[in-house]
């Protein structure tokens, strides 16, 4: 085998990657831990005590739990039936719907929040319409309800894509075996299909859980009095009055510990329940008749309408005439003009920062994927675990950790573009690593061994044989990384300066200032970039899906 060679260049890749993770992820997190037990400079647990002493603080935990669990449950309850319907029943325009589902998931959650405020908020169009025409007051969108609606709609596609993928691995003979024994309909779903895709549902649910737990923009905009942990951390760390770094660090540490335990529990359950399935003949999409068909269509259409409505409405408002901060009758490109003149630099920033981060991500992901798949050892296991960490650590906590660790020489990075790029790269690296690993598992090692046996060196073999085979997987992961960098808010909101402000940050701050026109124009541009990215990706790969 190749491993026995003395000069193994991959050894250096392993050491190098581990050092990078140690310096840029573990060290910052440890700094945070240290800070949490050094309130005011001397050792003690008063930061933790402060948290539990005051309902104003520990109440956020209750709120966060409420949001996180509710969102996770609602998302699963919504996404699983939709995936099941779209994979078993013939729905008209289903390929368009699949693309819309993808689109609805790749915008920043807070944009959904702000669109729902425009629609259903106190002075929202729908609210006003019902009040003026029927004198009916619509349900309150602020607080818990709003967060729940926004995050559920936003995160539903994640579970949908996971479950869709799993349903495609269920062989239709299993379904037929159960039907031939008289087990059909809902019963079949509960006894056969459900248990088979349960590990996947759990994996999707975990992702949703982590996202809901970490989301900062949505509760900030629509939560009003309903404060969640990321909001607390942010305000404690940033605000002029409440500034308490040690306290923010303490809360962060607790969140990370909690998230890690949820992650481990899920891993345990999923491991015990994973079945190896290979589908010779995937389940067939059948045409349904009668009421079942109507209900299935209705369910899917209503969902997709609600999911895509925020983005559509934002795009619509971007073309409205504005007068000062308010929209007036008539259409114009005023908002776009304002966006370019006021925050046009943010568009350039976004591209520079995101592309730099993406370059780092692609190189690292390829190398790390190769060593974890092809050189399994205790060290690469450690590397594997390290690459999973950013899934668990919420963005705002990573932001604080980076600021805590790199605020003095020799590594004075705060307020630089580097720290922004760093945070993007760390947070979005897992997507590309995951897809690169997945594809590498499918690439036979025999072709590498053949190349080596024919006298090609390690480097040449990698560049000429392995890398080309990996590229499709790398590409699909890179697209996901790219799209999610574009909408990253929770870490960058802590790290940015005027010089490194991205579009997403600009949208957020414009929304906070009430400049809805500018925000709408900017987020329409962002949506446009997203659509173009996806179109290029679909064209390049000939695929119609982006697997997550």
């Amino acid at each position, binding site marked *: 085998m190749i491993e026995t060679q003395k000069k193994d260049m991959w050894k250096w890749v392993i050491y190098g990657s581990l050092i990078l993770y140690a310096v840029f992820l573990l060290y910052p997190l440890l700094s945070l831990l240290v800070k949490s037990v050094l309130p005011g400079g001397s050792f003690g647990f008063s930061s933790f005590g402060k948290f539990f002493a005051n309902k104003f603080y520990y109440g956020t935990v209750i709120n966060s739990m409420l949001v996180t669990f509710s969102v996770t449950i609602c998302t699963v309850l919504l996404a699983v039936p939709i995936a099941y319907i779209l994979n078993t029943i013939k729905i008209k325009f289903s390929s368009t719907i699949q693309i819309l589902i993808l689109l609805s998931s790749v915008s920043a959650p807070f944009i959904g929040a702000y669109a729902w405020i425009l629609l259903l908020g106190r002075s929202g169009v729908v609210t006003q319409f019902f009040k003026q025409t029927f004198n009916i007051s619509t349900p309150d969108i602020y607080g818990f309800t709003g967060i729940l609606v926004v995050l559920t709609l936003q995160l539903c596609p994640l579970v949908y894509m996971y479950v869709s993928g799993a349903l495609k691995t269920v062989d239709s*003979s*299993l379904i*037929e*075996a159960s039907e*031939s024994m008289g*087990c059909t309909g809902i019963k079949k779903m509960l006894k*056969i299909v459900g248990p088979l895709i349960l590990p996947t549902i759990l994996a999707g649910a975990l992702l949703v859980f982590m996202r809901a737990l970490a989301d900062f923009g949505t509760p900030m905009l629509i939560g009003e009095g309903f404060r969640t942990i990321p909001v607390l951390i942010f305000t404690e760390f940033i605000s002029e009055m409440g500034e308490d770094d040690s306290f923010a660090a303490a809360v962060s540490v607790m969140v990370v510990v909690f998230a890690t335990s949820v992650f481990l529990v899920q891993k345990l359950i999923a491991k015990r329940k994973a*079945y*190896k*399935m290979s589908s010779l003949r995937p389940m067939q999409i059948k045409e349904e008749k009668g009421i079942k068909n109507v209900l299935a269509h209705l369910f899917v259409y209503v969902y997709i309408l609600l999911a895509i409505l925020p983005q559509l409405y934002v795009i619509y408002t971007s073309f409205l005439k504005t007068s000062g901060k308010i929209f007036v009758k008539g259409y114009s490109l005023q908002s776009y003009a304002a966006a370019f003149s006021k925050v046009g630099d943010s568009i350039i920033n976004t591209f520079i920062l995101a592309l730099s981060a993406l370059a780092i991500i692609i190189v690292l992901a390829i190398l790390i994927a190769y060593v974890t798949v092809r050189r399994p050892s205790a060290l690469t296991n450690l590397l594997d675990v390290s690459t999973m960490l950013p899934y668990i650590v919420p963005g705002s906590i990573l932001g604080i950790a980076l600021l805590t660790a790199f605020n003095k020489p020799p590594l004075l990075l705060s307020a630089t573009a580097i720290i922004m790029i760093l945070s993007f790269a760390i947070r979005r690296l897992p997507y590309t690593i995951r897809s690169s690993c997945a594809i590498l598992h499918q690439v036979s090692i025999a072709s590498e061994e053949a190349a080596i046996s024919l006298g090609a060196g390690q480097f040449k073999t990698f560049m000429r044989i392995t890398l080309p085979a990996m590229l499709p997987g790398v590409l699909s992961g890179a697209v996901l990384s790219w799209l999610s960098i574009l909408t990253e808010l929770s870490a960058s909101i802590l790290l940015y300066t005027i010089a490194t402000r991205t579009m997403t940050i600009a949208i957020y701050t414009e929304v906070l200032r009430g400049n809805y026109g500018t925000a709408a124009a900017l987020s329409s541009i962002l949506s446009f970039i997203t659509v173009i990215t996806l179109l290029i990706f679909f064209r390049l790969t000939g695929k119609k899906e982006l697997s997550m």
Partner: protein
Amino acid sequence: MSVRIKFKNILKKYGNTVVIPDLSLDIKEGEFFTLLGPSGCGKTTLLRMAAGFNSIEGGEIYFNDKLINNLSPGERNIGMVFQNYAIFPHMNVFKNVAFGLTNRKVPKQKIEEAVNKILEIVQIQEYKDRMPENLSGGQQQRVALARAIVIEPDVLLMDEPLSNLDAKLRVDMRNAIKGIQRKFGITTIYVTHDQEEAMAVSDRIAIMNKGIIQQVDVPQTIYQKPNNLFVATFIGRTNVLAAKVSKNTLILNGCEFTFGKTLPSDQTNVLLSIRPEEFFISNENKGGLKGKIEHSVFLGLNTHYFITLANGQEVEVIERSKHGTALFAPKTEVWLNIDTENINIFDKAGLRNLSLGGNV
């Protein structure tokens, strides 16, 4: 309780392509009936129509006198064994086998008894609590068989159940399947593309080609008296030689062979299907077709010779291996005689067996 199965003028279309144009078939009660044919000929399609997984575009299917066209699979009381076993991966062996009975709300006690009994019969009693992933292919197939039989189905449907097993296991399993089928006397439709397997297990075989049944008979008849050239060449090995006939004489490559029966007088050009064992080989000129040995294969009981005839055609000849004599070496000149009473003679299109009717 077993049933007769009747297929009447069955038509199957996928979109606009007709896969089975017009098929009729009667299967007797308790019979082990095999659908045999090349891949893509429509065996699976027909089986799945009987199971209720494929729509029926025309014709009727009866179990006894009951029309089942519009019954759902669950209502047909069938047991089905799939090519890839279709064992539920999230249930242990016992639960898999009990699944059908649980669905029928059979009391727990009864389920336990029935399942244990069947597990014993298929000899996987000891794996009762195992998860499927810890079973070998053969064991999984036994689970699948037990699961199909335990519900006491009227009909057992099996689609290439052995094709995922290795050669040795295939023989073991087919004997097990045959034994169990005989024990329970369930009417069984068995699909395979493996003729040896079909011969080994079936009471009767239907040979299919392109959605059309070519012949339905017991294995011996299928082999010895094929209806047409397709059946003759599909089942077993055979040599096809063009010949001329006049009255009781066959003329091949200028050699004449007398023949016991009289063929229809309008046939002068015919095709002979001569099985390798229907040639007699000799290195002395006692008349017959002249040829030259190309090579030989010694297989213990039999020896196979590959011989080029004077006209360049290659034929295969099987001879019972002899003791004490060397095989004919390559390039040896040999003469072949023909067991004319047993060979089959087809019209020149290969559609009709002229030697079947005797004196027409």
